[in-house]
């Protein structure tokens, strides 16, 4: 396995450590203020305009899982009464709070505000209500309507913009900071640049071989994308990451010495078994050339960008229409179809997350659509993104191996699609 381990990984680690150090500083000194928010299509640009540091409970939860520390907090939350089939992110986060556990070992500050920026999942609303109650912090719930058509209506955009402006006043009142429109435009300009760079990285995966894995390597890049998107550090990181991956592509280097399969992955990874899961693909030299999970924060590879000339409006547009979870299922089908066709994939892997109904409900139908309507070989596997108890390694490996065995025979027979 020739897994990429270069500057990107090193710098990502440093940036994430620096973020946790800022949170620790905030906890110790009360400065800078911190606000809790969610990844999915968020308005971190607004926080940057105030110099407020974001706290991402989802990132904390996944960091615990990838370090094999999620089961303890999950059990602690279950002891408190959270059901076994509750979202495991919620349980790990709440349990970690109860146990005083943080991924970095440092402290997490009491947020000036708990900002629920995604209402598509009612569990998430409850999660943030609980966080606000446990931390005795104020809660603000942004009501972002689901995308019902191809584009959000002007009324939807105006509705979200009005809430963002109300949020600005709320933050001013809570922190005593003054909102600076120029600083907001600067943050939006940074996001625009990062989105452009990130999108170009994603398009590099259209090369054969792909110089990076758009699922496993993309997850490494997603930390800086979410925490530093609206900052000059984010711009610097993605500029260099793109240069490094472009150089790799120019040398004709793929993720593996000889790329054998190209797949699209739908669903988050099983973080407690991240390496074991990656190894299942590596054994077959299968590169993920695209993934839907890497678009939870935002879908930028099809052209959408924040715009400093229309900062409020484009932040609202991003929240309404240009992130995976606020869109409907048929749009997700189409996103996967485009990946399969434009990124020239051999098949699709769907990872069903037991404790996340929002992301996973309907994936059975999705599999049917892909295999029956498009003739795309599709593998469906089940475990969890956070709870290690749902991962049966032998069974998952068996399915993955069988899938690639079948794909191999297809490729040898010169077929790209299965006969339906």
């Amino acid at each position, binding site marked *: 396995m020739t897994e990429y381990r270069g500057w990107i990984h090193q710098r990502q680690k440093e940036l994430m450590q620096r973020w946790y150090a800022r949170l620790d500083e905030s906890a110790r000194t009360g400065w800078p203020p911190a606000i809790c928010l969610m990844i999915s299509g968020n308005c971190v640009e607004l926080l940057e305009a105030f110099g407020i540091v974001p706290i991402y409970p989802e990132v904390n939860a996944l960091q615990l899982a990838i370090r094999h520390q999620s089961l303890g907090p999950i059990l602690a939350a279950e002891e408190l009464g959270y059901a076994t089939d509750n979202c495991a992110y919620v349980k790990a986060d709440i349990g970690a709070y109860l146990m005083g556990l943080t991924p970095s070992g440092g402290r997490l500050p009491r947020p000036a505000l708990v900002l629920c920026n995604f209402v598509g999942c009612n569990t998430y609303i409850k999660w943030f209500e609980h966080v606000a109650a446990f931390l005795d912090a104020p809660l603000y719930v942004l009501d972002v309507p689901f995308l019902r058509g191809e584009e959000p209506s002007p009324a939807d955009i105006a509705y979200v913009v009005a809430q963002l402006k109300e949020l600005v006043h709320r933050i001013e009142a809570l922190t005593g900071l003054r909102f600076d429109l120029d600083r907001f435009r600067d943050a939006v300009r940074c996001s625009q640049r990062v989105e452009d760079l990130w999108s170009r990285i994603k398009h590099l995966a259209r090369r054969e071989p792909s110089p990076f894995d758009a699922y496993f390597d993309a997850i490494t890049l997603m930390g800086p994308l979410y925490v530093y998107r609206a900052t000059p550090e984010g711009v610097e990181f993605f500029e260099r990451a793109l240069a490094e991956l472009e150089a790799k592509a120019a040398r004709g280097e793929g993720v593996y010495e000889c790329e054998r399969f190209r797949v699209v992955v739908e669903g988050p990874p099983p973080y407690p078994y991240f390496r074991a899961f990656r190894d299942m693909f590596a054994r077959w030299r299968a590169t993920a050339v695209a993934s839907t999970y890497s678009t939870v924060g935002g879908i930028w590879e099809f052209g959408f960008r924040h715009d400093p000339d229309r900062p409020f409006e484009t932040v609202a547009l991003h929240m309404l229409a240009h992130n995976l979870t606020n869109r409907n299922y048929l749009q997700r089908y189409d996103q996967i179809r485009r990946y399969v066709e434009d990124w020239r994939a051999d098949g699709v892997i769907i990872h069903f997350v037991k404790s996340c109904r929002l992301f996973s409900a309907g994936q059975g139908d999705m599999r049917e659509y892909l*295999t029956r309507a498009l003739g795309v070989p599709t593998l469906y596997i089940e475990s969890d993104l956070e709870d290690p108890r749902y991962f049966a390694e032998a069974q998952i490996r*068996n*399915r993955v*191996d*069988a899938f690639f*065995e*079948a794909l191999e*025979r297809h490729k040898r027979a010169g077929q790209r699609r299965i006969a339906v």
Partner: protein
Amino acid sequence: MRCAAGVDVGSTQTKAVILAEERPSASPRIVARAVVDTGANVARAAECAFQAACREAGLDPHEIGMIVGTGYGRYRIAFGHAQVTEISCHARGAHFIFPETRTVIDIGGQDAKVIRVGPEGDVRDFVMNDKCAAGTGRFLANAAEVLGLSLEEIGPLSLRATDPVKLTTVCTVFVESDILSYLAQGRRPEDILRGVHLAIARRTISLARRIPIEPAVTFTGGVARNIGMVRALEEILGLPIHVSPESHFMGALGAALFALERMEHRSAGDPALRGRG
């Protein structure tokens, strides 16, 4: 003559099959088969099954040109040359015995899977039970135990049912209390057993319907030896089902066929086989 072996290390039993090919284009024939309980030592079970098959064939293990392992314990077979999943192997084995096979239903000790097969025996699609032994061989074994019967008895006995019970569960653990409550109501064991078989058949067929069921359907795996299960599946499916006396060995047979194919590719210098196996 070229010989190849397939060893299928299943959760309950380990099976081995040796195939011989008189000349390159001739159809291979099964020259030996062996089965042992898997037990706790997977590597040893594989070795025992392979050695027993060699003895039956009257062959020295060195005369076997290629050995392919399959089943959950496939990576523990130290003497094997390559590993292939039992999904590919059952498809291949079923196609070898019944070339018209387009759907394979395989029910083993802890697994139930349905495989859509192409005209060449290639896997087109598959679905499996999730991480739970509901509706598998283990479920039947538990039901037999509660009724004080052997696994061999329950299939034929179930066919004598006149008024099958409706089981409320296919959970391997809860089936016990379900059966006890029917016994307490004075229901006959044959009616209870028919209910047990129909419950598994319904679950398996609903799994199968996730991929289009295309005839001919071949039933493989250890549970295919149970006539009650064959009839229950046929009733729910509304189609006749192929069952071979080799059904229990289908995974090992498929593995042996892959072993022969690899011998051929190896002698032809197929680059696709480099770097694996």
